[in-house]
């Protein structure tokens, strides 16, 4: 037992552990912020899993065809925004089931990405690669956290910087207030002269753009190629993390980091030839997400109008 605790201590004190944690956390931070913005406006967006796949693919494809890495990221965001626009049309204006529409978007975006990949590369045995974002070696000199940050790319730092920005937007700007009103009490928002449908639509488009970028991190920074099942449930985990975070950006960052730390730890234990079958380690992220939902269930303060379509003049 003491052995185990001391090796755990060694791991937590090690630079590679924190490097891995931040890397794993990045797509979760971006995706969770995306879901959070949609849900704050009152709309569940289960399209995230597929939007991440589509963003990972289009961002990578743009870079593969010679675009710059930042252009690739913009392409991924645009792809996400387009998927979001479809989700908004279906759920906000046409008021169909948010659950089923989101799943449909996921199925459509995933299958379209696979289809387009096969059309673009009919016969490849090894996935074509790109030159991904480089680590920020210049940050090496910062005391204490320098060695960890120097291994990260600009996308990771950008994702972390986005958290206070999102919090400021949601709590301190008129647009953020409109967003929250649309998710808490759309009828009152309408009474204040807000166009609830437009606010919700804009939130979904913006949130989905973040989801597209979350996917692009995988192909443009974490790896250098596109694999069909590379998102592998990360989108669903983001949906769970938003509940865990009580719809607050700061807590979302905390949740993503905590979750990523667990994931980094299980990866390390797996590499050390852990005593248990590797499948049990791989189950951990999904089981943790479910546990997070259970633990937070009683305290969850859902946006009051979440999943309630708004139809003018109807109660």
């Amino acid at each position, binding site marked *: 037992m003491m052995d185990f605790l001391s090796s755990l201590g060694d791991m937590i004190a090690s630079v590679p552990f924190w490097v891995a944690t931040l890397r794993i956390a990045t797509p979760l931070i971006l995706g969770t912020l995306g879901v959070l913005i949609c849900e704050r406006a009152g709309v569940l967006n289960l399209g995230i899993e597929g939007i991440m796949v589509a963003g990972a693919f289009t961002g990578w494809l743009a870079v593969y065809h010679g675009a710059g890495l930042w252009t690739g990221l913009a392409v991924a965001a645009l792809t996400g925004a387009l998927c979001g626009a479809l989700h908004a049309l279906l759920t906000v204006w*046409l008021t169909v089931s948010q659950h089923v529409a989101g*799943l*449909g978007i996921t199925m*459509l975006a995933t299958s379209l990405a696979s289809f387009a990949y096969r*059309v673009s590369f009919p016969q490849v045995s090894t996935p074509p690669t790109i030159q991904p974002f480089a680590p920020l070696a210049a940050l090496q000199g910062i005391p204490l956290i320098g060695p960890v940050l120097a291994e990260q790319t600009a996308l990771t730092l950008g994702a972390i910087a986005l958290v206070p920005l999102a919090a400021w937007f949601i709590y301190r700007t008129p647009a953020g207030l409109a967003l929250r009103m649309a998710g808490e009490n759309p009828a009152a928002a309408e009474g204040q002269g807000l166009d609830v449908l437009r606010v919700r639509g804009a939130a979904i488009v913006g949130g989905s753009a973040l989801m597209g970028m979350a996917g692009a991190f995988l192909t443009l920074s974490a790896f250098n190629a596109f694999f069909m099942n590379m998102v592998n*449930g990360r989108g669903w985990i983001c949906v769970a993390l938003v*509940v865990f975070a009580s719809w607050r950006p700061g807590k979302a960052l905390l949740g993503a980091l905590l979750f990523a730390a667990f994931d980094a730890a299980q990866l390390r234990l797996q590499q050390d030839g852990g005593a248990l079958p590797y499948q049990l380690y791989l189950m951990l992220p999904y089981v943790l997400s479910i546990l997070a939902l259970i633990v937070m*269930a009683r305290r969850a303060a859902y946006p009051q109008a979440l999943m309630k379509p708004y139809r003018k003049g109807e109660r």
Partner: protein
Amino acid sequence: MRLEARSRVSRGAVLVAPFAAIAFTLAVCAALVAWAGAPVGRTYALLLEGAFGSRFAIAETLTRATPLILTGLAAAVAFRARLYNIGAEGQLYLGALAAVAVGGLHDGSGFGLPPALLFPLMLAAGAAAGALLLLGPAWLKLRLGVDEVVTSLLLNFVALLFVSLMLDGPMKDPMAMGWPQSVAINPDLELPRLIERTRVHAGLLLASGLAVAVWALQRFTRFGFALRAVGANARAARFAGLPVGRTVLLCALLSGALAGLAGVGEVAGRAGYVTLDMSPGYGYAGIVIAMLAGLHPLGVVLSAVFVGAVMVGADSMSRAVGVPNYIADVIVATALLAMLVATLLTRYRIRWGRA
């Protein structure tokens, strides 16, 4: 743009909706086929021929439709009570594992029981495995208000890893040369073939029979009434004294059991053993099938044949003209979204311009 409720929903419109959705889907996907550089007309003709063009093609389509009917029913029953079971994929795999646990371990000796007893035991085990996997999310929804969509989705990943664990360990087939494959079930437990020299098996009859049974259950029993009432308006149902919680839990057991049976059918009717790729997303396709059928259990049989035909036809078309067979997944996903809109339009009218 705004919606205006129709004063009455016409029966004709409800019946036409799925066909309109499918026609729209095929029109949209034609653009993708053209982009892939294939002649659209010939591609669709090949798809149709691959699905229905010969005795063998029809048999393959029906074989593919068999698990789809069951996962479609699983979704239809659950969605009727507004229990969004997205975990049919995992439930299918656990059902398949349970079938092997009963019919395949101990060299298929089946704990010394005769096949006549072991066969129903195998079905029951598969159904129970699927049912239990959904019971957790349903209970969490009722007791703690945890969204069952996310929990049942996440359990799909856990279930698949559990299958992988079993195929590496206690259920591993030592003769499979390192492929992750379970031991085979006792041949006496396999479902009989329906047509000579094809793969259609008696699971098709079982699945269709269950569709009729589920329809009758919903239509004629007290439970079926409660199920529909809870789905229509849970608060009103509770106010009227219906046992809402019990109905949702029973519905979860039924839905999970149907998905688990889909797994049993794949093991006992087709492969004989479990592999990690035995389902190309049957669980997720079940959602589309249920929606296309308007959640009607008998309609599920028809829409399962449609989705099965798209899958089989796309495989055969892809070999001929080189359009990637992922077009099948695109068609299925687009059909789902189109059907959502088509269903809405049966109940609402779109008015352009501001109110």
